[in-house]
């Protein structure tokens, strides 16, 4: 009773993460998983939307530094994530709730593990603090 399980939305680049894995099996393990063609394609709007719709955390998985299929999409994503972390703080959304990892895992087996790690950290923070204290955050 009362156990809080954070909802994590995971965007992952298809070129670096899980492309050799069994999609169906991975999908069953990873809730709210959104494989995308390049992490650079993830717009700030998508991340804010995830929080608006009830995500407690957003994990972005991009390709390793220097290995983007489209030259620098992963670097673009990383800059965006840092900027968004600063935008989220005034709403009372701690920066730990948005994370980017640049690495590669063709089998996708690390994805559930990374989500678990993030989930554990967010569990300590608790659910997003709605309205109270920070009037702007209306979820």
């Amino acid at each position, binding site marked *: 009773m009362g156990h809080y399980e954070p909802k994590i939305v995971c965007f992952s680049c298809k070129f670096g993460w899980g492309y050799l894995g069994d999609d169906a099996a991975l999908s069953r393990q990873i809730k709210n998983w959104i494989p995308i063609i390049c992490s650079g394609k993830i*717009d*700030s*709007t998508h991340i*804010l*939307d995830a*929080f*608006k719709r009830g995500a407690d955390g957003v994990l972005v998985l991009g390709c390793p*530094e220097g290995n983007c299929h489209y030259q*620098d999409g992963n*670097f*673009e994503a*990383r*800059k*965006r994530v*840092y*900027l*968004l972390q*600063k*935008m*989220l703080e*005034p*709403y009372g959304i701690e920066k730990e709730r948005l994370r980017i990892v640049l690495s590669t895992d063709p089998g996708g087996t690390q994805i559930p593990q990374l989500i678990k790690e993030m989930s554990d950290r967010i569990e300590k923070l608790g659910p997003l603090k709605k*309205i109270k*204290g*920070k*009037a*702007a*955050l*209306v*979820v």
Partner: protein
Amino acid sequence: MAEKPKVAICWLGGCGGCDEAVVDINEVILRVVDAVDLILWPVALDFKYHHIEAMKDGEIALSVINGHVRNSDHKEIAELLRRKSQLVLAFGACACFGGTPGLANLTTKEDIFNWVYRDAPTVVNPKGNHPQPKVSVDGKELTLPEFYEHVYALNQVIDVDYYLPGCPPPPDLVVNAITAVLEAKLPPKGSTLAPHKALCDTCPRNKTKPAKIAISDIKRIHEVEADPNSCFLVQGILCLGPATRAGCGEACIDINIPCRGCFGPVEGVADAGAKFASALASIIDVEDEEEVKKSIDTIDDVIGYFYRFSLPSSILGKKDLKKTI
């Protein structure tokens, strides 16, 4: 003689700048008053709200409403005008997106009251008086409008037919909007009566922009002496042009001030601040993780800068008063 269409101009939580913008259409206003019957304009003419209450529903052809909704009085007037009007035009950044007062949504009502009535250094309030919606004095009940927890854009309180953004809207767009109503040549309901593209598209400095903008130092306009002819972003100065709707007539750019976003997001975009974040991140030309952090950390008050006029209608900050009360 056929009866002239009735028009109401009203301010809610506004500064008066939008009413000023109506006067700024100069002699065109003479044509307007010839063509319509002004039945309400609190800032300029002495009509009473009970005159409006006595009217039939839908009797007013157009209500031009500026300002945000922050208290129960604003809400009541907005609802009254909606009931009595065929068309409602949200006029100016506050009515369209919440405007600069919307940044107060980052602070609670309690903090605002504590500062204004207790903690600000210029306040002397030994009895600790706070305004109350109801108070009894000598057996009589006095009332004040209820101050809400949140600043709302007009469409979060009533249905809005058309939008005309700007802080304030420029005279040419005001004239266009009025002409469109008078000639019944209006676009589909819900349209913004301004161009669809981003400000960069019409910016006179656009031609000075290189194929790729790459900056590492981010500056604010007061920290540097800006070159009056080249693109602000190329100079590393934050300018919201890429994520802001065109139509303002580049009034700020012309006096060497970067765009601050009063025209709100471009057509089809819900959140101007998020789009600007995406655009800005792309032109920061540093790859090393620590350098990225250092560069981004130099921006003071990210949210205040990106959402100066639009926090109450942003993805995370929007709230609908129609649903909550």
